[in-house]
């Protein structure tokens, strides 16, 4: 670590406006710049990829006022005085998987999530790719966990009742001359970095496997271990299994403050009361830096990076059946910003994501430029791709550190916190493996813990009627006729499945909550036909008027009450 060298790089990147200092084994940047992008540039210049000495961003941006974190509308004392062994902050894939692994122990576990559902941010707003790790070199935590995580997927998804398909990935090349160089690269990956299944295939073989791909491709790297999963489905499954095994989950619950004494967190304040955990796990995504700061343990910084994905009609799903991207050697390197094409577990195509630095941690609004950029690039892989097949698009915000690696470790200045921070791609792939390590760390930190002998790793999924044979369907309908009443015509979802979602271990009785669990409204009409019906089913389930049903958040009102003298029809 040569701070003089870093200082020079930072000064160059910021035209002398930002200074770097080594403080408590962190590189702390300070100064004042004109824009967020300039601050990011300066911090990136100071960072050494994968280093454990992190850049802490104290650079101020002129006229920049950071938006406060959006808070749940709820305010009560439901949690006041609770003394859990473990408090997990964050209900994304990291927090949910850690909660599930920790539920193997006789511990009181409390998971808090500020959003009204799990996987509301990055974990529910990514492409669902289970990565092979082809682009990762030895020495990073990403590399360490990806091989383990990828291998675990089959078993974990089987236990949790989540569909997982190992579909394989192709990185396609147009330049025949590059083949020897890429072959060497693949050799290194295989023998040095132990990404063992990668191989080079010819253009001819590629077209045999994926006939819709551009005919001009000369060869491709094939990574058969690549898979796909429904990322929010897996997060919800993990959380439900944790709850089944005794963990407590509180949605709409945000951490607002912590009391720290002698390097230990004593209490944690939330909008639902103050809790007194023995240890805290920081899985707060884009807000993990704020959580670390509350624990007096801020030794890294997060720079949010947003990405937009499009979902295409299932008809377009017939074009290809794997994961694909194009590597253009002429263009500059950097992050894989043009995304790829992925055939999802629900048989749609997913196109994206792009990558754009942003100062706004919670701004998930979409922009036309993202879609245009990604489509222009992906049409080079598959010319049949058309924006006309888009049924929806969404944006998520990643939570990288400037070192672009994960932080999975015990607190440096706080004795009872474990950070699971800086999680970005391939965080979904690594989550099962990371959760096991965090479990170990937590158990160690807590001292002796007893095994939960009643732990059941199996979560039964809600039956998916559309995938059943007529005979299987008839059988299940005979038991419960609600399975025979189709509510969502596009995705063929029955009333029975919707009621199952409402009766699941963590009930989220909103349109989006039901949609994420059993898919009504995910199809080509985007809920045009079924949303009034689902709203009504939720209202009946809750025993409340229709106007009290929400789309997701407290303020996401759907209707404003009954019309003039009207009585509910039908």
């Amino acid at each position, binding site marked *: 670590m040569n701070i003089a060298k870093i200082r020079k790089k930072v000064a160059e990147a910021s035209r002398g406006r930002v200074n770097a200092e080594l403080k408590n084994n962190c590189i702390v940047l300070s100064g004042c710049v004109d824009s967020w992008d300039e601050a990011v540039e300066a911090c990136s210049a100071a960072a050494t990829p994968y280093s454990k000495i992190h850049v802490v961003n104290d650079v101020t941006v002129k006229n920049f006022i950071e938006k406060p974190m959006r808070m749940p509308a709820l305010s009560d004392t439901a949690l006041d005085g609770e003394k859990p062994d473990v408090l997990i902050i964050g209900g994304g894939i990291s927090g949910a998987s850690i909660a599930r692994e920790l539920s193997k122990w006789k511990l009181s576990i409390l998971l808090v999530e500020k959003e009204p559902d799990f996987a509301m941010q990055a974990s529910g707003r990514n492409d669902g790719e289970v990565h092979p790790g082809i682009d990762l070199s030895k020495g990073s935590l990403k590399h360490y966990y990806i091989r383990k995580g990828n291998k675990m997927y089959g078993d974990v998804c089987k236990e949790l009742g989540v569909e997982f398909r190992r579909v394989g990935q192709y990185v396609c090349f147009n330049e025949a001359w590059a083949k020897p160089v890429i072959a060497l690269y693949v050799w290194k990956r295989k023998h040095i970095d132990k990404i063992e299944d990668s191989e080079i295939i010819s253009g001819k073989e590629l077209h045999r496997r994926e006939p819709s791909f551009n005919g001009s491709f000369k060869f491709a790297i094939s990574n058969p271990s690549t898979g796909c999963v429904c990322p929010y489905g897996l997060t919800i499954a993990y959380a439900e299994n944790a709850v089944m095994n005794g963990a407590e989950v509180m949605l709409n619950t945000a951490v607002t403050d912590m009391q720290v004494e002698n390097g230990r967190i004593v209490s944690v304040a939330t909008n639902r009361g103050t809790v007194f955990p023995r240890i805290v796990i920081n899985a707060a995504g884009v807000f993990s830096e704020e959580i670390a700061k509350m624990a007096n343990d801020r030794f890294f910084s997060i720079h949010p990076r947003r990405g937009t994905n499009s979902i295409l009609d299932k008809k377009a799903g017939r074009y290809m059946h794997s994961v694909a991207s194009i590597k253009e050697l002429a263009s500059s390197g950097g992050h894989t910003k043009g995304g790829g094409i992925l055939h999802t577990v629900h048989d749609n195509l997913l196109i994206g994501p792009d990558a754009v630095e942003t100062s706004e941690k919670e701004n998930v609004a979409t922009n036309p430029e993202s879609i245009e950029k990604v489509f222009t690039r992906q049409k080079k892989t598959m010319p049949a791709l058309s924006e006309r097949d888009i049924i929806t698009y969404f944006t998520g915000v990643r939570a990288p550190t400037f070192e672009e690696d994960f932080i999975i470790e015990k607190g440096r200045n706080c004795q009872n916190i474990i950070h699971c921070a800086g999680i970005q791609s391939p965080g979904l792939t690594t989550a099962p493996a990371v959760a096991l390590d965090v479990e170990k760390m937590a158990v160690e930190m807590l001292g002796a813990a007893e095994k939960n002998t009643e732990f059941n790793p199996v979560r039964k999924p809600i039956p998916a009627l559309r995938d059943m044979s007529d005979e299987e369907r008839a059988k299940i309908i005979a038991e419960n006729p609600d399975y025979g009443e189709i509510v969502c015509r596009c995705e063929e979802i029955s009333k029975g499945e919707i009621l199952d979602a409402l009766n699941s271990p963590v009930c989220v009785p909103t349109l989006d909550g039901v949609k994420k669990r059993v898919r009504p409204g995910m199809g080509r009409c985007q809920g045009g036909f079924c949303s009034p019906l689902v709203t009504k089913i939720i209202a009946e389930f809750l025993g409340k008027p229709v106007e009290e049903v929400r789309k997701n958040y407290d303020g996401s009102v759907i209707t*404003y009450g009954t019309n003039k003298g009207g009585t509910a029809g039908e």
Partner: protein
Amino acid sequence: MNNYNVIVIGGGPAGLAAAIQAKKDCASVLLIERENRLGGILKQCIHDGFGLVRFEEKLSGPEYAGRFIDEFNSLGIESLTLSFVTKIEKKTDGFAIHIVNRGGTAVYTCSAIVLATGCRERTAKQVFIHGTRPSGVFTAGTAQHYINLMGEIPAKKCVILGSGDIGLIMARRLTLEGCEVLGVYEAKPTPSGLTRNIHQCLNDYGIPLYLSHTVTRVFGDERLEAVEISQVDEKMRPIDGTRKTVECDALILSVGLIPENELAETLGVQMDSGTKGPLCDQNLMTNVDGVFSCGNALHVNDLVDYVSESGETAGAAAAAYIKTGRKTVRFERGSGIMSLVPQMLNLEKGIDNVTVYFRSDEVANNRSLKISVDGEEKFRKKYAFLRPPEMERLVVDFSAFNLKPGSRIVFETEAAK
């Protein structure tokens, strides 16, 4: 026991008319409907104006549907409601239709199928509206379902995008329920709905119509808070510097209908780029023998009267269907024709009394529709004006045209002489 001559899929106006006609023509008929009541979308169309052509009366949607439902019932036609078709298999002597309902699963077989599956609405993302994903963004049909079938008010202060008929009807409906309708915005330079609806739904209530304007963005993290509106050029691209933000709590979309033919496609039915429905001959049989199409699944109609008429055509043909060879000639869409139904003629069947529906691709006065065969003009009809929202219907006697397989039949419009 589960075998019928004709199975009609869809119990809206097209399906009802098809089933009634097939039954009258002595076929055994089963109608399958996925909702719990017959009538299709007419159930929620409580405004009047239905049946002017057919009954010379102004009926409401439920009244119009009621007349067909009464006839359907009096003929003793069998129907399955709340029953969903999961799969159709082609068999050597017909079709096997798999359904699911509260009773379980079942398979019904038939010689001919009439697909009367209607259409769905284009959504916000399909017209590339960006921004957040709040509640309060509804397609017009969804808003209509809430307000007319459930008695729930979906908006207090709204913007309507698209001047399609449902959008115009909803502008009036919401106004009558006390909602403030700030305006109807239409990306095209001309309205998309019927002229009578512009008068009766907007002008009579003082609701402004903004042509060449569109919604480009929505705001609000929970409920919709505002929309961004831009003026658009002739290619419907937003013009820089014309952007403005309008505060509202609902955006109602009436931006087009898409015929629903996902079942048809599983049978290998070919689609027409003009209508987005199946390619059909004069009997409304698709390229797949024994598969007929009608109503809004065939092409989006402007009046329900034509929906019923096409149902009758398809129903009669399905009842009379016997598998025979076909000798078809295709129609070509020449200049000025946006969509055309049918798209082909079967020379083996009657061609002396063929009902043709078309839409012009532009607003124009004093036009002629010209039909030519191999470059020679065979038919001409004058129109004082043609507008894309209004579907034109005419009956043509093709028997005088000397048609042979391979004849090139072109429909086009030109300035009237």
